[in-house]
């Protein structure tokens, strides 16, 4: 059989989401960001809201998110995405606004903005990619780095006496009256990917229904920063990260 006989519309089982551009991604092979971008693009397209969705990209590895997903974007200063999203959402109430934040953005430099936007119950979606490391700047400690985990700034492993404890910011988000939906997911298996997609969709539905702030944490891998292969990273994540950051809904009202 010739290959051209196989490449036919009726044989198609998978395709690139229509909102993902034909450009080279800067993310490392094996990184979770690519999957999360794909899910975002699929959800926005399936809900038919691309013409009224605005993304707020962070500082960190996802700083260039605006190069890949075909909606309007504004690039925020480090940690300020929730403040930026607050104004975008309040000034254009028919538009659907989401932030895309890493662990440094959400739980270190942007803790105040993240907590307060959620506490005000801004009608926004916060996508939180927690890979327990600062990937963009070369693998330094994140607020979510595990005890004992080696990074460029904790070369002998994170120590409580020197570096304090890993911050479970999503748990904090769940106790705020302004949040309507807080969940922690991952994208390391096909089943987890499908589950996360459903969660992202629910978060966008909440924003449209003006129910308050939805937070979707995605426990993620950074195989370059962790200095592991993509497969080893997934295994290490399941073994170590899920213990500190267990998957599942923390709040759903």
């Amino acid at each position, binding site marked *: 059989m010739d290959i051209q006989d196989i490449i036919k519309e009726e044989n198609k089982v998978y395709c690139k989401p229509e909102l993902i551009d034909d450009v080279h991604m800067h993310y490392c092979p094996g990184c979770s960001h690519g999957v999360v971008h794909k899910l975002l693009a699929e959800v926005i397209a399936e809900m038919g809201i*691309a*013409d*009224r*969705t*605005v993304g*707020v*990209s962070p500082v960190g590895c996802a*700083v260039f998110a*605006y190069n890949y997903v*075909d*909606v*309007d*974007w*504004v*690039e*925020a*200063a480090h940690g*300020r995405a929730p*403040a*930026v*999203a*607050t*104004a*975008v959402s*309040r*000034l*254009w109430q*028919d*538009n659907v606004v989401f932030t895309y934040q890493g662990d440094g953005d959400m739980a270190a430099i942007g803790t*105040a*903005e993240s907590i*307060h936007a959620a506490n005000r119950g801004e009608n926004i979606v916060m996508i939180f990619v927690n890979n327990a490391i600062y990937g963009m700047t070369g693998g330094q400690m994140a607020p979510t780095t595990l005890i004992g985990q080696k990074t460029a700034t904790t070369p002998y492993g994170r120590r409580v006496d020197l570096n304090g404890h890993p911050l479970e910011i999503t748990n904090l988000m769940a106790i705020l009256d302004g949040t309507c939906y807080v969940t922690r997911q991952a994208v390391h298996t096909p089943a987890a990917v499908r589950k996360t997609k459903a969660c992202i969709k629910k978060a966008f539905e909440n924003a449209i229904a003006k129910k308050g702030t939805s937070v979707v944490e995605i426990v993620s891998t950074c195989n370059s920063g962790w200095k592991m292969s993509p497969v080893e990273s997934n295994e290490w994540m399941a073994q170590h990260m899920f213990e500190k950051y267990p998957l599942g809904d923390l709040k759903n009202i």
Partner: protein
Amino acid sequence: MKEEVRLMKGNEAVAHAAILYGCDGYFGYPITPQSEVLETLEALMPWETTGMVVLQAESEVAAINMVYGGAATGKAVMTSSSSPGISLKQEGISYIAGSELPALILNVMRGGPGLGTIQPSQADYFQATKGGGHGDYHLIVLSPASVQEMVDFVALGFDLSFKYRTPAMILADGIVGQMMEKVVLPPQRPRRTDEEIRQQCPWAITGKKGDRKRNVITSLELESSRMEVINQRLQATYREIEKNETRWEEINVEGADYLMVAFGSIARICTKAMEIAEEKGIKVGIVRPITLWPFPKEAVEKAAQGKKGILCVELNAGQMIEDVRLAVHDRLPVEHYGRLGGIIPSPQEIVDALEAKLVAESK
């Protein structure tokens, strides 16, 4: 119809002026001596009338980033603060300038450095006119000397910032913010509709409708050759602003032997000093820069011709004097007189300084 004259504080007047301009959003955080701006807006509840959004943010940092977000959508948005709070906003202001967005920022200056004092000062001149945040950029800096100008400069600041897609700052001192004066408010302008904003601001992130490509608001460009082009575009805008928007006021400059250069409320104290000097036979004129950036250097140079000396009167240790010296190329004596830490000089003190620093020297 006869104009209605109202009596109000400079800070209150700014709140009224913002609503009447058709401002879409105000984001602020309380700090003395400008908290009346947010308080007045909350009391007037413009969201019930014009639809303007008013929000007390969790910090000055959050407030300026809300302004950045609102400006990115093409809306007319503003914030206000006082010196320590304006320092916190500098990162955001740099991003707004770097992303070529319109926005209005009010600084009601108090004495510094650090937490300083809540009394009036003009010590943020360098910060406002030379950059303040990181990178090569300028703000359009307007200096009000009256409550009426606090009102007028809200509209002027917004208009200029949209015309050039660059942030504008009203650099007021605590006196102008706190004092009550007669003021005439402008008529209510309607806020622009979303459709008008989509047409007037095709660059804005309003939702990617129809066939247009997606809009991205960012100040990031890692490719140096492209970043240089962006910087050159910013500089070209600044040259246009210098050419078209320099503003100043002259009082009794013709025939005077000496010149006083002063901005904001101190320029008004200088007018009284000018009268006292006149009675003593000392003829003094005043140049009051209205735009501090662009600085009216040609006007100062022209006014200085034939004069025996210039006294720069500022509520700081000598900041604007550097621009005055550059303007006149040190061809004549340029002296500074200022009080620090929130103290306001009397007209007599200014005359004494003029006599001691310039008149006695030239005899």
